[in-house]
C-alpha cells in the first residue's frame, strides 16, 4: 500500500499473538523499549481460535505491572485488526508513537540505576 508511518517501530512477526508471552513484553522494556504494541486479529477471527484473547489478558497484566513499577502502563497496548487493514496499521503506529513521544523516553534508558542479571532466554 506504500503508506507512510513513523520509522521508529521495530516489527517482530509471530504466527499468532497467542505466542506472545508476558516475559517477551517485560524484557522489551528491560532492554529499553519506550513502547510496545501487540497487534492481533479481530476478536472472534483468530486463526488459532483464542490466541488473541490470551494476548489481551497478558497485555493487561503487563500494563498493571508497568504502572506499579514506575514505567507506566500506557506504554503497552493491544490492537486488533485484520491483515487487509493496512491503513489501520499505519494509524496504530502513529497513535502509539505519538503516545510515547508524549510520555517521553522510558525511564529505563539513561537511568542512574541498573538492575542486572545474565540475559535470559525467551520463554515460550
Amino acid at each position, binding site marked *: 500500500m506504500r503508506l507512510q508511518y513513523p520509522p521508529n517501530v521495530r516489527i517482530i512477526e509471530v504466527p499468532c499473538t497467542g505466542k506472545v508471552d508476558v516475559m517477551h513484553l517485560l524484557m522489551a522494556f528491560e532492554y529499553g523499549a519506550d513502547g510496545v504494541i501487540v497487534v492481533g486479529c479481530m476478536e472472534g477471527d483468530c486463526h488459532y481460535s483464542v490466541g488473541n484473547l490470551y494476548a489481551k489478558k497478558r497485555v493487561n497484566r503487563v500494563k498493571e505491572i508497568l504502572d*506499579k*513499577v*514506575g514505567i507506566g502502563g500506557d506504554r503497552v497496548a493491544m490492537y486488533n485488526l485484520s491483515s487487509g487493514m493496512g491503513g489501520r496499521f499505519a494509524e496504530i503506529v502513529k497513535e502509539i508513537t505519538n503516545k510515547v513521544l508524549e510520555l517521553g523516553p522510558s525511564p529505563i534508558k539513561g*537511568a542512574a540505576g541498573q*538492575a542486572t*542479571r545474565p540475559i535470559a532466554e525467551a*520463554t515460550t
Partner: protein
Amino acid sequence: MIKAVPKPLEEVLGLVKDFNKVLIAGCDGCVTVCEAGGLKEAKVLASALRLYFTQAGRQAQVDETSVTRQCEKEYLAQLSENMDTYDAVVSLACGVGVQYLAEVYNNKIVYPGVDTCFMGVNEERGVYSERCQACGRCILAETGGVCPIARCSKRMLNGPCGGSDKGKCEISKDVPCGWELIYERLKTLGQLDRFEKPVDPKDWTTSRDGGPRKIVREDLRI
C-alpha cells in the same frame, strides 16, 4: 493440591525495595499448577523488580530460579551455591516451602511472595475451590464423598442449617450448600438413611485445634 495466589506486586515491592541483591525462588510443585509461584511466575516477578530498581536509580541484582519443591531439604540444598550473594529471598512456594527455605537458610531474610489459600481442586484453568481442611480423621465414607468440614461454612456434622437456600449457602450465591451436595450424593447412592442418625461431636484433636501436628511413620524409618 495446595492452591495459592500471587501477592499483590506492590506488597512484594514494599518488602524488598531496600535490598540490592534479591533472589526470587519458585517452586515446581503445587504453586506451578495453580500458576502462582512456578518458574514462569518467578521470571515475571524478577523482571518487574528489575524494572522497578532501574527506574528508581538503584544498582541492584535480581535473579530467578525454581526448585522441584521447597518442602524437601534435598531440593532446597540446590540453592546453597549462590545463596551468600543475596540480601533477601522472595519464596514463591506455599507457606510450607517459605518456612522450610527460611529454616535451611536461617540467616537469610526470606519473604513470602504468594498467599497460600487452601487444599482444593482445579475446576478449570484459573478456577480453584476448596475441598479439604485436613481435620485428621476423614469421614468421607459417611457423607457420600463430600466433606462437610470443608464445604459447609459452619462445618456442621448434622446439616443443613436453616439458611440453606435453593442449593446455596447463606453466605453467598457462589457457595454451594455443602449439605445439599451431601444430600444429593447420598440420594444417588441410596444412602439417605444416614441422614436421620445424629452424628456425635467431633474430636478436633487431630485438626489444628490439637496443636501443630506431626506424623512419624515408624514403618518407613530404619
